[in-house]
């Protein structure tokens, strides 16, 4: 690896690492693997409303979220998840070899690093711990998805809303004297951006309820 690129990657990582969500993919990666992923890659500026990934498009890059709050949505109007600094998006289509399964839109934040899909997988294969981490992350997402499906059949709307709020608070919340709080990502019921950026360095996702009719 070129020394200048390596140094630049180290500096970029060092600037953002503290803000990454605990338990996120990037936070758990061994430094060498992370530097190999980042060195020499283009960064993407995340303007609110910018779509990094569009459902149905062919697979391309994997994005490493350095400083971001993103929503993951599926047509016609389903908000699936939030992704924040330390998370990655776009890996599923690369692994499956198919098209993008959802749209990923910036709500606030500043920076993502784009890694070509085949390069991402090659580097991950070079580091066995990174591969385990990726498998573990995907397994966790599958488990979450199963839980939600079970909730949908078995729970009342009130319970589902309470579970979703509890989950968001656990993942992104910020404890304070008055309770647990998180800063909102301004999205409407359809996952559309509504307002300007918030401070994503705190790694807080959020949720604005409004007229959302899904839980």
């Amino acid at each position: 690896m070129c020394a200048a690129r390596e140094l630049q990657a180290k500096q970029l990582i060092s600037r953002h690492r503290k803000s990454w969500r605990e338990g996120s993919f990037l936070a758990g990666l061994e430094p060498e693997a992370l530097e190999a992923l980042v060195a020499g890659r283009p960064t993407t500026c995340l303007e609110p409303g910018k779509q990094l990934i569009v459902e149905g498009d062919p697979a391309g890059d994997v994005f490493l979220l350095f400083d971001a709050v993103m929503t993951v949505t599926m047509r016609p109007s389903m908000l699936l998840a939030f992704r924040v600094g330390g998370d990655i998006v776009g890996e599923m289509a690369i692994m499956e070899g198919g098209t993008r399964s959802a749209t990923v839109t910036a709500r606030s934040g500043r920076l993502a690093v784009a890694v070509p899909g085949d390069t991402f997988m090659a580097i991950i294969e070079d580091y066995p711990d990174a591969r385990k981490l990726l498998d573990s992350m995907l397994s966790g997402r599958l488990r979450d998805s199963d839980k939600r499906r079970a909730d949908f059949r078995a729970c009342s709307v009130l319970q589902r809303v309470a579970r979703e709020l509890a989950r968001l608070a656990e993942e992104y919340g910020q404890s304070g004297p008055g309770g647990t709080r998180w800063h909102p990502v301004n999205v409407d019921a359809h996952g559309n951006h509504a307002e300007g950026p918030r401070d994503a360095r705190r790694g807080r996702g959020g949720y604005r309820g409004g007229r959302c009719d899904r839980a």
Partner: protein
Amino acid sequence: MLVGAGVATVEDAVTELKSRGILKWAYRTFEILDVKALRRVAYKGNSS
């Protein structure tokens, strides 16, 4: 009483959680005022 009986939409559910003092919902911020109570509603089905 069935948990959430009469709660048909997300909006109703949020209103219910607010009325119980569990959730405070300002214009740009959610605050969970009583995490334990929220978890009771979420996982134990306790309506009180």
